[in-house]
């Protein structure tokens, strides 16, 4: 579902009106949480590549962004029982290629740490969905004469009826990966033609756009949705919590499977 950030924008605008409002970085004493294991695992069913990143949580003020867990045993387990081991390519980073999956089948991912703790996650392979087209919508932009027009991406695709579908858009604008998770569920619009603009990203004339359209599983959708929930400014966000994925034994993170498709365009008036 499209997130409505509109209200937050109004609030920030009004705070700006008051002029005296200010944002500054403060030093807060935070109680350090106990270290937990994080498994960030995904399998791209379109090209058969699986990436797994195993880390430990860090203190909030730690200067690194992650604490790698090397030497783990990581395996994909197909519902038939066949096991495919992943290879450690760098500290904490595991990979395997050439995986072939069939939508509807179950797939598990097992992680065993050198210290013998075991973590297991399971998901169901989603069905592939492809874009019909990728268009642009002209937005308000700067309304003054000669002002820069602003564009929104408007992907179009047919949602398959009768099944739960979830989608994610990964956008690279002028070579820069846009942060956050743009996800959509067909929960309330099952089987309809999707052609709404993506309100989250704004483009100007001449921008190069690289869009990865993913058809994701329900585990990924729910997990990213929870991360989004936490990423909003705290005065509009829900009470904070740790997003829950599909790993057992208290591990954070998730294991998801998706089909992906890439489209590229340069923003121009002709489109």
């Amino acid at each position, binding site marked *: 579902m499209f997130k409505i950030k509109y209200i937050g924008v109004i609030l920030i605008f009004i705070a700006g009106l008051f002029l005296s*409002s200010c944002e500054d970085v403060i030093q807060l004493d935070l109680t350090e949480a106990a270290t937990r294991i994080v498994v960030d695992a995904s399998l791209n069913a379109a090209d058969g590549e699986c990436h797994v990143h195993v880390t430990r949580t860090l203190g909030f003020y730690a200067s690194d962004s992650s604490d790698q867990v090397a030497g783990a045993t990581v395996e994909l387990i197909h519902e038939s029982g066949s096991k495919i081991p992943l290879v450690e390519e760098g500290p904490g980073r595991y990979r395997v290629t050439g995986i072939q999956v069939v939508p509807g089948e179950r797939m598990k991912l097992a992680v065993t740490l050198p210290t013998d703790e075991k973590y297991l996650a399971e998901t169901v392979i989603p069905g592939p969905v492809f874009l019909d087209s990728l268009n642009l919508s002209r937005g308000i932009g700067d309304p003054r004469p000669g002002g820069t027009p602003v564009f929104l991406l408007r992907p179009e695709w047919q949602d398959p009826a009768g099944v739960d579908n979830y989608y994610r858009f990964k956008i690279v604008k002028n070579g820069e990966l846009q942060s956050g998770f743009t996800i959509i569920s067909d929960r309330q619009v099952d089987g309809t033609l999707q052609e709404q603009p993506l309100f989250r990203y704004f483009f100007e004339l001449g921008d190069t756009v690289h869009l990865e359209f993913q058809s994701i599983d329900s585990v990924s959708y729910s997990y990213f949705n929870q991360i989004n929930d936490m990423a909003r400014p705290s005065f509009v966000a829900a009470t904070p919590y740790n997003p829950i994925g599909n790993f057992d034994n208290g591990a954070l993170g998730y294991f998801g499977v998706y089909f992906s498709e890439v489209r590229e365009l340069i923003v121009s008036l002709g489109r």
Partner: protein
Amino acid sequence: MKFKSVIYYVFFCLWFIPVGSLAGEEERFSVSGHIKDSKTGEILIGATVSILNNGTGTTTNQYGFYSVKLEAGSYNLRFSYLGYEPLDATVELKNNLHKDAELTPRATTLAEVLITGKSTRTAVNNLEMGSIQLDIKQLKSVPVLFGERDVLKGIQLLPGVSPSSEGSSNYFVRGGEADQNHVLLDEAPVYNPSHLLGFFSVFNSDAIKDVKLYKGGIPAAYGGRASSVLDIRMRDGNSKDWTATGGIGLIASRLTVEGPIVKDRGSILVSGRRTYADVALKAVTDDADSLTFYFYDFNLKANYELGSRDRIYISGYLGRDIFTRKEAGFDSGNATMTARWNHSFNTELFLNTSLVYSDYNYGFRFAFGKAAFRLNSGIIDYSIKQDYTWYPNTKNMIRFGWISTLHKFKPGNFASESDTAAFFAPIEPQQALESGIYLSNEQKISRRFSMNYGFRVSLFNNIGPYTVKRYDDNKDVLDSILYGAGEFYNGYVGFEPRITANYLIDSSNSIKVNYNRMYQYLHILSNSVSSFPTDLWTPSTPLILPKIADQFSIGYFTTFLKNTLDFSVEAYYKTMHNLVDYKNGAVTVLNPDIEAELVFGKGRAYGIEFSVNKTLGTLTGWVSYTLAKSEKQFEAINFGSWFPARQDRTHNFSIVASWQVLEQLNISGNWIYYTGDAVTFPGGKYEIDGTLVNLYTDRNGSRMPNYHRLDLGVSWQFKPRKSWNSDINVSLYNVYNRKNAYSIDFRESETVPGTTEAVRLALFGIVPSVTWNFKF
């Protein structure tokens, strides 16, 4: 629960205490009438009538009506009200007598500056506890943000009440949630009493006469919210002369015009207020024609005396917030209308009948190229109610009545204007009927002991058409039942005992105890700190049970220094059932299956409130301190253990002072301090797909920084001119420029990528403001 059965038992027995002999005595007659202001004809609420011969007395009700029953004879009556010259009258009682009184406001402001509307002695004597009457005149001297006098900011300085966040009109009462406060304007519920996301209340203080907050000891006549009742009464308007009052402020201007329809028989008042931030903004930016933002309020009140026994009132309020920018727009607002008919059947029985309408709605629309979307949502109430007051004798005052309200809920539905593509599934509207009957008696049992006991029975019915759904743990619909139009498909009944007792130790010391139970059938589903116009009221349903709050309180009231200092201490213990919260990861916007996203739990709150109040002299004001705790318990949160509610503010201190230095010069100030909110801060971090995610521990296990702030104000009264007078008010909000945190966000550093930092948002630094007020 044993405690509860004891309460019920005591409660029922009370109705068998003899109500005093109603017959068989010497012949008794009533003296009754209205008490008014002699200059404006405005009725006075809570004015005192003392019978000097025997030391008894009574007070006027919300319509300025009083009635006393006495044996035949000659009596000396004294009519009094704080800020007015008392008026003595001798009556010869041979039959029922109608006696109106007009009191004259005291000439000198220096001798007595109003801080509370009640005289000090009545706090000891009366049968109210946990309630505070706020005089609008007192608000004049309290310095406020942007110089906009505001009743909702005023009550936040009282013990047991604190703002929901910086600058907000929303407030917490005794550890309850913000949606547990009933806000009534001339009996009409105001569903969103704030403008501009909460920074201003909808109440234009020029149009307000009386404000009374009940934190506990809530009379049986009120029902529908778990925590508190704020009863706001609009002024009736001057029935003697035409006058105009107004003010020009930093962000808004206001004007009130009032006068007699027929002299001494009826009056009309029209009041308006509008902000002009949009005008100012247009002056300083070249973004001129694209942005419009303002809010306005409009109050109207008219009354007419049909005879000595009947009086009719019409009052209305209309206010809206409007925000547009070219192709996007948002607007929200309330409209209320109350029609009332006061009728005295005889000198003993008074009746008020009201028809009430209240509408809160919001809508927004935005467009991108060819695609345009709009959303409209709201709640509408239609009520009819009757309130009787019966004065059978001097020892008893019996109140009874009923109310029935039809609520119509219009949920937010998002629609695309330009094409037919499904965007969001539609959400069904709902309707419900909420009713209540009540009976209570205020009884003087002996010279020292008096009680107010009664009960309210509330009924709530959901009415079709509606589809009731049940959900599994996966938020999927298990089954659904479709109910037809007009079908009553679900109902709740609440029995709500209310009892307060006062024991006078001596003329200046008393102890009071109170127990009350409140049912709440409407809820705001919201999980964010700020109040948004989009926070929507939803009814109880088969799944969402009514909230129930039980409160027990005990208080000690005294006065010293010749009644110039009023001291009180009140302790309370409150339990709350069926509190609602969202599940983690809930889809809260435009979700037709919102009920699948809810979890239910309970709460408890307790605390002790101290207050010292100085009402007389050139230096007036109060000091209040509250030590309190508020906790919640949800099965799904913190492994089912109790955790602090966000509004768990351990210490809450406020000092309000006003010093009348000269006849023309008043200096005022207030300082407030409260413990930071209980919040959930991260204790670590990790990375998912290149995005940093915060690691959290216990729910509400951390604290926001403590809040404190000093405000100062100076007002100068210009020499009165022949036909008009004016004053100027300069105030400073947050004098020592403390950066109180509105929110703290934890995010990736923009300067050092890969590291994380805590970012504080402080909304208001030091804010000066100037207001010029005038009266013709």
